[in-house]
C-alpha cells in the first residue's frame, strides 16, 4: 500500500496559536527527568479519595449504572449540591435549573466564560491565579486584563486596583479565594468593598470557590451570598480539592437560571454530561464525606502552620496563607528571579516548587510551595530550602 503524501498546510485557529503554553510545563519536564526529588509542586491533595466514595462508585458499576445522566447531572446530586450550598454558604440554588454538574471546575470555568464573554469584551482577572483563566478568556475572543495583587496586601485584591483597570468594555471579573497559588482568602468586609464596585459598574462575577472548604482561620464567605451579588455571580466549584477527587473530573457551576441555561447549552453539546460513575462518587461524597474531609482539613492546617513558620525561619518572607494548600513565599531576598530560584533549588537541592510568574501578574519574586505532602517530606524540604537560602545569601 502506498500513501500519497498530500500537500497540507497546517491551519490552526489564530486564537489557539495566540495562547502561550503553560509555564508549568517546563518545570514538569525538568522535575520529571530527575530522581529523588521532593515535590512541593503538586497542585492536588496528597490523599487518595476516601474509600466510601470509591466504593460507592464501584457499586454503581456493579448495578450497571453506566448510561448518560441528564445533561445537568444526576438530579439527586444537584439536590445535594443545592442543600450543601445553602447550609454551608447561605446561598440558594434551584437544583432544577440553577446547578450544572461539570467535568471538573475546569469545564465549569470554560462554559461560564463562553456563556458570558463576547469577542472584544474585557474580563478582569485577579492574579496571581490558577493558570487557566486568562487562556480560557482568550479562547472566547475576550481580552483578559490582569489585576495584580501583592504580598503587602496579603494577596487580597483592592478596589483601587480594579477601578484603575475598568473600561467601557469591562464585562466581568474573575475572583478566586481561597487562592491558588497564594493561599490568600478574602473576608466578608473586604469582599463587600469589591461587591459594591462590581455592582456600581454592573459587572458579572466569576467566582472560583473550589478551595472554599480549605479555609483554616475563618469561615469562607461566598461571593454569591453577599448582598446584591447573587444575580450577577456565576459560582464555580468542585470535588477535586476538598474530597481529594482530582482524577474523577467532577465539579459544578451554580448560577441564576438565565446564566445556567446558557451554560447548559454549551455543556450539552460539548460534554453531554459528566461521567456517570464520577457523579455517583460525588453523590456519596456529598452525603457521607464530611467527617473524612474535616480530618483532612485539620491536617492541612497543621502542616500549613508548620511549613509557613519553618519557611520564615529559613529566611524567606511569607504571608499567612489562610486557605488552599499553598504557601507563596517571597524569594526576593535571594536576588534571584523566581524562575532562577526554582530551577537552582531543583538542581542543587532536589526540591520542586513552581516559579510564581507562571501564575500571572504579581507572581514574580515568589514561588508556590504546596504543603499537600507528608510531614516527613515537608521537614526534609524545609531543611533543604534553608540550606539553599543560606548558601545563596553568603
Amino acid at each position: 500500500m502506498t500513501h500519497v503524501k498530500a500537500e497540507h498546510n497546517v491551519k490552526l485557529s489564530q486564537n489557539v496559536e495566540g495562547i502561550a503554553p503553560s509555564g508549568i510545563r517546563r518545570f514538569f519536564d525538568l522535575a520529571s527527568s530527575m530522581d529523588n526529588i521532593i515535590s512541593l509542586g503538586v497542585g492536588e491533595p496528597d490523599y487518595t479519595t476516601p474509600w466510601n466514595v470509591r466504593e460507592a462508585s464501584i457499586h454503581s458499576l456493579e448495578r450497571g449504572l453506566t448510561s448518560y445522566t441528564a445533561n445537568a447531572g444526576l438530579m439527586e446530586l444537584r439536590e445535594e449540591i443545592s442543600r450543601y450550598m445553602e447550609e454551608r454558604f447561605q446561598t440558594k440554588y434551584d437544583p432544577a435549573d440553577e446547578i450544572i454538574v461539570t467535568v471538573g471546575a475546569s469545564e465549569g470555568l470554560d462554559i461560564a466564560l463562553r456563556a458570558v464573554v463576547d469577542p472584544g469584551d474585557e474580563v478582569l482577572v485577579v492574579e496571581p491565579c490558577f493558570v487557566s483563566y486568562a487562556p480560557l478568556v482568550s479562547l472566547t475572543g475576550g481580552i483578559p486584563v490582569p489585576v495584580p495583587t501583592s504580598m503587602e496586601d496579603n494577596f487580597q485584591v483592592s478596589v483601587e486596583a480594579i477601578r484603575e483597570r475598568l473600561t467601557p468594555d469591562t464585562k466581568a471579573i474573575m475572583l478566586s479565594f481561597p487562592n491558588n497559588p497564594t493561599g490568600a482568602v478574602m473576608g466578608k468586609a473586604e469582599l463587600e468593598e469589591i461587591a459594591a464596585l462590581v455592582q456600581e459598574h454592573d459587572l458579572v462575577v466569576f467566582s472560583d470557590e473550589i478551595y472554599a472548604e480549605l479555609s483554616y482561620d475563618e469561615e469562607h464567605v461566598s461571593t454569591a451570598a453577599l448582598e446584591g451579588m447573587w444575580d450577577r455571580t456565576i459560582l464555580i466549584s468542585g470535588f477535586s480539592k476538598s474530597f481529594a477527587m482530582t482524577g474523577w473530573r467532577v465539579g459544578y457551576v451554580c448560577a441564576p437560571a438565565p446564566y445556567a441555561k446558557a451554560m447548559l447549552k454549551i455543556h450539552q453539546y460539548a460534554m453531554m454530561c459528566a461521567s456517570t460513575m464520577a457523579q455517583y462518587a460525588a453523590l456519596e461524597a456529598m452525603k457521607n464525606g464530611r467527617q473524612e474531609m474535616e480530618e483532612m482539613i485539620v491536617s492541612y492546617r497543621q502542616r500549613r502552620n508548620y511549613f509557613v513558620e519553618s519557611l520564615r525561619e529559613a529566611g524567606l518572607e511569607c504571608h499567612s496563607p489562610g486557605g488552599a494548600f499553598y504557601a507563596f513565599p517571597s524569594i526576593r531576598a535571594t536576588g534571584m528571579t523566581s524562575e532562577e530560584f526554582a530551577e537552582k533549588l531543583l538542581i542543587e537541592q532536589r526540591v520542586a516548587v513552581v516559579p510564581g510568574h507562571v501564575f500571572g501578574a504579581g507572581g514574580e519574586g515568589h514561588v508556590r510551595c504546596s504543603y499537600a505532602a507528608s510531614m516527613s517530606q515537608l521537614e526534609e524540604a524545609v531543611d533543604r530550602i534553608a540550606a539553599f537560602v543560606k548558601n545563596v545569601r553568603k
Partner: protein
Amino acid sequence: MTDKERELLLLIEKEGRMASDKLAKMLELPINEVRDMLADLEERKVILGYSAIIDWTKAVGTEMVTAMIDVKVTPQRGRGFDEVAERIYRFKEVKACYLMSGTYDLSVMIEGRTMSEIANFVSEKLSTLESVISTTTHFRLKQYKHDGIIFVDDDEDDHRMVVSP
C-alpha cells in the same frame, strides 16, 4: 479538655511521640505551653505511653501467635467483674482485656511464641481461676488492619504528577 488538647491528642495518637518544637508550630502554640500540656496529659494518665506499630510477620524469626479468648465468669458480690478481670489482666501474656456485652463477659487477647504456649496459659492459668466458667479460644490467622493501620501491602506510592497547576 480544651480544643488544643484534643487536637494534640488526635495528632500524636496517629503520629506517635513528636518533638515539641514541631508540635508547637503545627498547633500554633508556644513551645513551653506544648511541653506543659504534654506533661499534664501524661501525669493525668490521659497519655499512657508511646509505641510503634509493628508487623511482626515481616520481622523474620520473631513472629508471635495471638489468640482472642472469650471468657465467661461469675461476677463477685460487691466487686462485679473488676476483681476477676484484674486477676486476668495482670498476667503479662495478656495484651488486652475488655468487659463485653453479649454472650460472654471478658474478651482477652493473649500473645505467645507458640500455640502450645497459649494453650498452656489457657488451661493452667485462665480456666483454673475460680470465677471462670468457660473459655473459647480463637487463634488469629492473619492481621489485615490493626489500630487503623492496614497491614497487607497497600499501594501507597504517590501517583501524582511531580508538578501540576
